């Protein structure tokens, strides 16, 4: 099999970068910042190179790199990429440099450690998306908890310790369940394969053969861990705290990439490995997703803290993604994948914008603001575009994802009812309500607070961070085929794996 | 006439239990050490008894090991007690609870 080292380079570069960073003396802030940016940009360029060499018509994993790691347990180091992970990898490498740039003004102390953690985090995220061995996947999954914990805990807001600990333990509790499941899965599979292995592709052949109740348990074990990460109602309560207390850069990466790992997990692991269980639980999870959409939107509506509002909106948006995944039609799964990217971009941009204004006024209370349109027009424009993208206005990216998901859910054979899409569609109204109402209260209206007059508009660096995101927002909205084509074969393959799993031979 | 083996063993057991009781009940650290020595000596007695009754000299050689260890332990232990005393001005082990949660 082809042994391309590119993906491993992708992982090694940030590691190398972060290690080198440790040797730079702490006082040299400018060097640290530029070096961090340099490393993350190299990673980004490498991922773009991989993107252009990616064959969209091939549905199997590409750029695979494999070697034996732990001989006795037959655990390999195996990484590979397919359509869906390609898009997510590019999203990750795209957001990281932007986040680093945006943090130049907000992270003032311990810059070296911060950049180190960000690079470390990048490795973890990329590893999750490219690993094709369950054990390796688990390592990377846990690995990105640590830097996130530190980022929230050191550079965060007032209740940062509480939020960081909550985030860490909550997620870890789920993942421990997943570890048990992985081991169990590998052992059980060895009955079929003859040898203990955690190689994903081999498990794809075997796991669907398990009987229904085994599949159900394993599905739940994996699923709870992913559900916590997504976050799926009712496992979402760590999210508002983590987002609000994290520094801007942390929130952007958290919302932009980390949340996608949960949905990615569902698509990569739960669905193909346990197809019978997936169809069994599809309606239940879809109901939770829809509750998440509506509940998330309603609670977002009444928040007074802007960041918390956006955090709850994430719950609502990812509810759509989960609905799309479990509706199991090509439209809805494609919609889900595209919506993952969209959410990363729009919500990432929203957090950036909230962060920018927070840096100036040190408050996120909506009531503090009002009528800032006249004072910071550029900011208001960006906020409007991003809010509309989040609302799902056609012509921008959000519509493509939401429309495909709703359309797919409507005609889904697995869900078999129109009510799912019907209820989810009301989420569309609610999204407009909470976002535009916030926009109106913050941007429009009379100026109630004289201190607002002192606001300065976005400076060049901040605009520089936002513009690429806006470009993609419009690009995906107007011509999504560029990206849909990349993930199309993968979607087909996943749906195929769920609907036509390898059947046990009758002995 | 030989003394029956049981007498030695019972004496040994009594010595040992006395030692245990002393360790568990007495408050003074030095007395606790004395009880520990008592327990060690009861073990010595048992070893010598069996060695004599079985005609095997291994038991007696082992007694030397035990005595050496006891001496070393007593030396170190007393040194610790002196260090503790210097800090806490007491050898009452009820009051030495720095490791309490």
């Amino acid at each position, binding site marked *: 099999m082809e042994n391309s080292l590119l993906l491993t380079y992708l992982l090694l570069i940030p590691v190398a970068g972060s290690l080198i960073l440790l040797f730079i003396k702490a006082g040299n802030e400018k060097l640290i910042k530029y070096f961090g940016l340099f490393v993350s940009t190299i990673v980004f360029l490498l991922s773009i190179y991989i993107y252009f060499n990616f064959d969209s018509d091939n549905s199997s994993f590409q750029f695979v790199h494999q070697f034996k790691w732990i001989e006795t347990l037959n655990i390999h180091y195996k990484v590979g990429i397919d359509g869906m992970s390609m898009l997510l990898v590019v999203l990750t490498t795209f957001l990281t440099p932007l986040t680093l740039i945006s943090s130049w003004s907000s992270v003032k102390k311990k810059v070296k450690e911060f950049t180190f953690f960000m690079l470390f985090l990048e490795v973890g995220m990329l590893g999750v998306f490219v690993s094709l061995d369950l054990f390796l996947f688990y390592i990377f999954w846990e690995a990105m908890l640590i830097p996130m914990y530190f980022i929230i805990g050191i550079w965060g807001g007032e209740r940062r310790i509480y939020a960081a600990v909550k985030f860490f333990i909550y997620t870890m509790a789920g993942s421990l369940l997943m570890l048990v499941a992985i081991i169990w899965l590998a052992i059980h599979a060895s009955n079929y394969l003859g040898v203990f292995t955690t190689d994903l592709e081999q498990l794809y052949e075997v796991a669907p053969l398990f009987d229904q109740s085994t599949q159900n348990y394993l599905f739940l074990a994996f699923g709870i861990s992913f559900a916590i990460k997504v976050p799926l109602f009712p496992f979402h309560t760590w999210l508002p705290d983590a987002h609000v207390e994290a520094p801007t850069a942390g929130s952007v990466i958290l919302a932009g990439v980390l949340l996608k790992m949960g949905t990615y997990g569902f698509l990569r692991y739960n669905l193909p490995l346990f197809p019978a269980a997936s169809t069994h639980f599809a309606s239940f999870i879809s109901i939770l997703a829809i509750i998440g959409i509506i509940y998330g939107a309603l609670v977002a509506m009444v928040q007074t803290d802007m960041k918390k509002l956006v955090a709850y909106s994430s719950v609502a948006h990812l509810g759509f993604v989960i609905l799309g995944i479990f509706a199991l039609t090509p439209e809805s799964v494609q919609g889900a994948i595209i919506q993952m990217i969209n959410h990363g971009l729009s919500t990432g941009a929203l957090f950036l914008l909230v962060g920018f204004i927070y840096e100036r006024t040190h408050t996120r209370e909506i009531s503090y603001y009002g009528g800032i349109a006249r004072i910071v027009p550029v900011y208001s424009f960006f906020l409007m575009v991003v809010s509309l993208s989040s609302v799902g206005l056609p*012509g921008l990216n959000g519509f493509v994802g939401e429309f495909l998901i709703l359309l797919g859910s409507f005609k889904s054979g697995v869900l078999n009812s129109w009510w799912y899409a019907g209820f989810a569609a009301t989420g569309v109204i609610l999204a407009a309500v909470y976002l535009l109402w916030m926009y*109106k209260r913050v*941007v429009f209206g009379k100026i109630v607070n004289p201190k607002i007059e002192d606001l300065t508009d976005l400076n060049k660096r901040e605009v520089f961070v936002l513009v690429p995101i806006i470009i993609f927002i419009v690009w995906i909205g107007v011509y999504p085929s560029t990206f849909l084509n990349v993930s199309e074969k993968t979607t087909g393959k996943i749906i195929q794996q769920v609907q036509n799993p390898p059947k046990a031979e009758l002995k | 006439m030989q003394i029956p083996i049981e007498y030695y063993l019972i004496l040994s057991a009594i010595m040992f239990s006395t030692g245990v009781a002393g360790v*568990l009940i007495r408050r003074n650290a030095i007395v606790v050490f004395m009880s520990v020595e008592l327990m060690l000596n009861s073990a010595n007695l048992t070893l010598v008894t069996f060695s004599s009754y079985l005609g095997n000299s291994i038991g007696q050689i082992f007694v030397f090991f035990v005595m050496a260890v006891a001496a070393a332990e007593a030396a170190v232990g007393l040194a610790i007690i002196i260090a503790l005393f210097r800090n806490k001005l007491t050898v009452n082990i009820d009051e030495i609870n720095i*490791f309490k949660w």
Partner: protein
Amino acid sequence: MNGAFGSKIKNEKVIGIIGSGAIGLSFLVVVFAFFETLSLPAEQRTHIVDLFTWLKVGGLNVSIAYQVDQLSLVMALIVTGVGFVIHVYSIGYMHGDKAFWRFFAYLNLFIFAMMNLILADNFVLMFLGWEGVGLCSYLLIGFWYDKDFEKSTISAAGLKAFIVNRIGDVGFLLGMFLIYLVFNSLNFAEVFSRATTFHISEHIFTLIAIFLFIGATGKSAQIPLYVWLPDAMAGPTPVSALIHAATMVTAGVYMVARTSIIFASAPTAMMIVAVIGVFTAFFAATIGMVQNDIKKVLAYSTISQLGYMFLAMGAGAFSAGIFHVMTHAFFKALLFLGAGSVIHSMHEQQDIRHYGGLKKYMPITYGTFLVAAIAISGVPPLSGFFSKDEILWYSYTNIGFVFWLIGVITAVMTAFYMFRLQFLTFHGKSRFDEKKTHPHESPKVMTIPLIILAILAAIGGFIGIPALFSGEHGNLFHSWLEPVFKSAELKLSYFGSHSHFEEYLFMIISIIGAVAGILAAGYIYLRQPQVADRLSTRFKSIYRLLLNKYYVDEAYDATVVNPLVNTSKSFLWKIFDSKIIDGFINGVASWIGNLSSLIRKIQTGVVQSYALVMMIGILIALFWIIMSL
């Protein structure tokens, strides 16, 4: 044809020319396309231009493609033509406003979205235009975003418009999904041809039609989603003219017309459309009769006229409905622009009780307003008469006498409130301090558009003269649009021919009704103003009910908005999320904490307790060994 809809955002002061010029150019392009299409034989008049594939997933294949056929040409002519006129007017109206450039940018964006909506060849692109005009309406209504408006702010009005529209949009979306499920396509041509060839039960058609219609009620302000339109009057008057009189609100009517084949296959839905249409027309007219703000009267009038259009749609008279769209665009835009002229010269005063006798100050405005008022009242030979009469006639022949009757009564009310407005504003004694406010005629850049529209309102009706009058030429408008509605009309087989005599009779009755309304208004407001006061005190409760718009807004607030917000705030957030879910998590954490505090008591730090435990352990082990021997 594709050049018809570029939109650029600029920030110079020469914008007015660029903005209007862009639209003017589009108009010329459309006219050119119109004449070109005119030269083609009737069957070949559909022309599709495919730009690129937009969404291609699974079985779904949606392109950005535009379709030019008779119906879209008519709509495009209206939009660009009236749009152009309004742009020119706005140069004068918005003069001096510091966000001049932003206004024109939004206006152009609006036309772009509207053109997308009209020219789309599939549902999704139409939805893009649909939402796009909703967005522009939000931006334009809330244009002066830091001013107050009635009980809340202007931007709140914009928000209300967007949200109410969105609610309707859910209906549209569901309709779209159902269409996709049933017909496996969202492309107009494919769906419509399959609608006739597939065997689909009527229930499905009805369901689709109802969903689509919900979307239409949102956008075109019918019951129950009309509440945003009166509030939308907070925006600048040209906005009201363009969006809420001529174009955006007619998007719903256009949508029903475009999907006529689906509606025609679902008679139940048609009936619902007609009922809601006629009821809304009546309902809105009753409110309009007592409003005191000039723009509010016009707003309710718009809702009422839109009701007529839907009545036509429900009666299967699709081209009559579109005809009314066109004539309504003329006279309603004219009315709004005229109102704008008055408001401008009266220094933003909008209460008609403070007007009076303006005709000597603003003759051109007065004249054009009068033309529009006559047109809307349905007095021949102005355009409004032809279109309204056609609708009334078809509602009689295709549905029933009751509809015609309610329609005629509404027409009488229309004439009444329109002329009440006319008389109170322009005639009689001036009820304001003539020394303080100096009303003056508006500048030419504003009056010329008024004149243009007045001419159109006057003669525009002649395109659609019913067969009754023009003999062998037939109804030109109708026959132009016929190929579009052919398949729909085939499905609706209406029996019974009615005699010409009946047609004449009804026509005359409606004319008499209109004139009666005008005279009544003249009597009350010109001769005996105290009659109005007496009436309002005699029927005080009815008066108050009408004045307060039947308290519908308050009802909505109490039943929908407030419960939603309060429940979310107090229950969902404070209790459910914070206490129950989060509480559960924190509870687990503190439970573990308590457990640990319990267990750590073992660490006493006293050596003897450790020794004790060791002893006990050894004893247990000994016992175990002895027992198992």
